[in-house]
């Protein structure tokens, strides 16, 4: 019964519910546990995780988002910076399944646009032209060469018009006639990777400081605690803004990208560090860690074999929860114009164009599409992290 989960009552005198040992009870208990007895903690974590349906769905979404980032070149119909002054602020096209009857055959088509000029205000309006049809296809040649995963050069796109220069704006276009869909797909690369790399950096800082503080205690711990508290008591966004503003403008896009990542992680490590410290402190005095010491196990092995494995699931959960926070921070900074700058394409950079409420009124997709990307990614990561956190301690609920 010790493997039961959930709020099973026990007489609190003993945490072990099934103690009819020695008699047939022990044997029966032992045989019924045969299947779970040899399950490692990792498989138990996984089993508990799978019960969180929302978290499992989120996991698949996150996998999908990172796949989009990896295969952005294939998925995006246009290169990120590709613009077409003929189609400013055009609305999203709808895809129709039809046969125009001109020999191109039955298939998926999009309409072209016609331009009208308002005689009074001289504003230009674009409407979809019911007569102009462009056939779409899978793995069609786009005329834009790229290197597929650095392996070979190709110009095939996953889903694009068969005529290379046909208008194709599934999610609308911005002021310069750039395809929002393509840009959001490319933005995935930057936004999702900045979260990962930034968290990886803060993880290094956080784990090092947290583990050092938790393991050695005493004055070292007190000092690290003070530093952590200092960072936690600073409002992060203004501080990020200030530090980001100090980045020289003349630096190249890639350098700025890394500088921003470093900045984000410099401030984001605190919660990870606290988490790790708390866990290490409580694990240090666990009986089984003391037992390992008495077994004559070396200090290094105590940490590696007895302390770290218990930490990993918690660390993974914390990391998963830290990634969306970083993505949001990057997006906010870039939105304010203090983070990444064009020509880098990130979700935050895309949202810069939504700063002006007039353009949002004209073209709501400027706001909706990148925001949706941000929300989907962060929401899924938050749910995933939450599910992982609940599953992280497979023994917590069992006793």
């Amino acid at each position: 019964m010790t493997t039961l989960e959930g709020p099973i009552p026990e007489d609190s005198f003993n945490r072990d519910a099934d103690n009819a040992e020695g008699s047939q009870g022990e044997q029966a208990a032992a045989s019924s546990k045969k299947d779970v007895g040899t399950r490692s903690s990792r498989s138990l974590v996984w089993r508990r995780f799978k019960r969180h349906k929302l978290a499992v769905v989120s996991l698949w979404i996150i996998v999908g988002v990172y796949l989009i980032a990896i295969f952005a070149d294939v998925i995006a119909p246009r290169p990120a910076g590709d613009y077409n002054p003929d189609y400013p602020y055009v609305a999203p096209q709808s895809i129709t399944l039809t046969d125009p009857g001109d020999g191109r055959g039955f298939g998926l088509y999009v309409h072209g646009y016609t331009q009208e000029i308002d005689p009074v205000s001289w504003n230009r309006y674009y409407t979809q032209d019911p007569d102009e049809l462009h056939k779409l296809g899978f793995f069609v040649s786009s005329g834009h060469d790229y290197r597929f995963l650095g392996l070979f050069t190709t110009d095939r796109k996953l889903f694009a018009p068969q005529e290379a220069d046909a208008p194709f704006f599934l999610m609308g276009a911005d002021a310069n006639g750039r395809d929002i869909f393509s840009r959001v797909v490319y933005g995935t690369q930057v936004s999702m990777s900045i979260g990962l790399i930034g968290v990886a950096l803060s993880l290094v800082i956080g784990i090092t400081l947290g583990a050092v503080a938790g393991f050695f205690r005493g004055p070292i711990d007190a000092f690290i605690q003070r530093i952590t508290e200092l960072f936690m008591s600073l409002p992060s966004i203004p501080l990020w803004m200030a530090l980001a503003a100090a980045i020289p403008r003349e630096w190249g896009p890639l350098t700025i990208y890394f500088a921003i990542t470093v900045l984000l992680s410099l401030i984001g490590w605190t919660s990870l560090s606290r988490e790790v410290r708390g866990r290490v402190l409580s694990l240090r005095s666990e009986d089984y860690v003391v037992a390992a010491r008495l077994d004559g196990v070396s200090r290094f092995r105590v940490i590696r074999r007895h302390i770290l494995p218990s930490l990993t699931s918690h660390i993974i959960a914390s990391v998963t929860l830290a990634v969306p926070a970083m993505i949001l921070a990057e997006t906010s900074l870039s939105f304010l114009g203090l983070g990444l700058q064009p020509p880098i394409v990130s979700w935050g950079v895309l949202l810069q164009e939504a700063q002006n409420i007039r353009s949002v009124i004209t073209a709501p997709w400027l706001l909706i599409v990148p925001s949706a990307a941000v929300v989907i990614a962060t929401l899924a990561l938050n749910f995933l992290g939450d599910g992982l956190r609940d599953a992280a301690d497979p023994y917590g609920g069992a006793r």
Partner: protein
Amino acid sequence: MLQFMIRRIGWSLLTVWLISLVCFFIIQAPPGDFVSVLMANAEADGRRLTAQQVDVLRERYNLDQPWYAQYWAWIWGILTEFDFGYSFRWNRPATDVIMEHLPFTLLLAGGSMFLTWIIAFGIGIYTAVKRYSIGDYFWTFVGFIGLSVPNFVLALVFMYVAFRYFDMSVGGLFSPEYVEADWSAARVLDLLQNLAVPALIIATAGTAGLIRITRANLSDELAQPYVMAARARGQRENVLLMRYPVRAAMNPFISTIGYAIPSVISGEVIVSSVLSLPTTGPVLLGALRNQDMYLAGSFLLILGVLTVIGTVISDLVLAWADPRVRRQHSGAAQ
């Protein structure tokens, strides 16, 4: 208790000092100094500063001295004359600019703290008591959405909806008819109405975390034997719930408020920038964009100090609210 207060305030003074160092570092971070920026600016306007003017300015701001002397001069000015330096962009003392905008920031931050607190506590109690119910899942989900949608997106959506469907131009803290009006009850009401939505937007980010904390704490407290003991002596469920476990779950809640302040200040900066509210946010943003570093650094310092003050207050409230802490530090238990 007194000892505890002294120690706590001592630590926070140290933190404030470290914050001031960070802020000064930020002021110093951009290449060139304040005067060279001023010169470049003047040149851009087609004017020219004489060498004499430059020297006077450099001396005035101790730019010819090592950094610690400059730091000391800056701090000394703040401490003795409340002089935060000079904002070249506004061509006014930074203190004036700050003081003009700070009250609205405090109002907005206070309002969103209040909302965060009310919403999180209410939902937290509900979800803990009705654990694993439909309502629990629903509110948890809503909380997560609040956590996942960036503040500025919410602000933009709000502006869009107001403009598109209600034909209202959002921005500022006063409706057009009250912008120039004298203070009156109607104007205060108008201000509060206009504050409500930004405060709510800022509050969304912080609530999810607090809901989770409240729910976890209260769930732990509900499982404590003293709840059953109170039940066993015949107390009403609602009374005992509020009197014992909810009261106990308040303590960690109070201590998290301190850490919610930085997040509220952060949210305020962004949301105010989008909605162009007359708070510190847009001013800070403008200062940073234009490398008006004394103004930016001073804002940062003040926001940091406010946060520290907030944390100290929440710690003191916590100490006062928890007899264990209270008696521990009073030294005379019996």
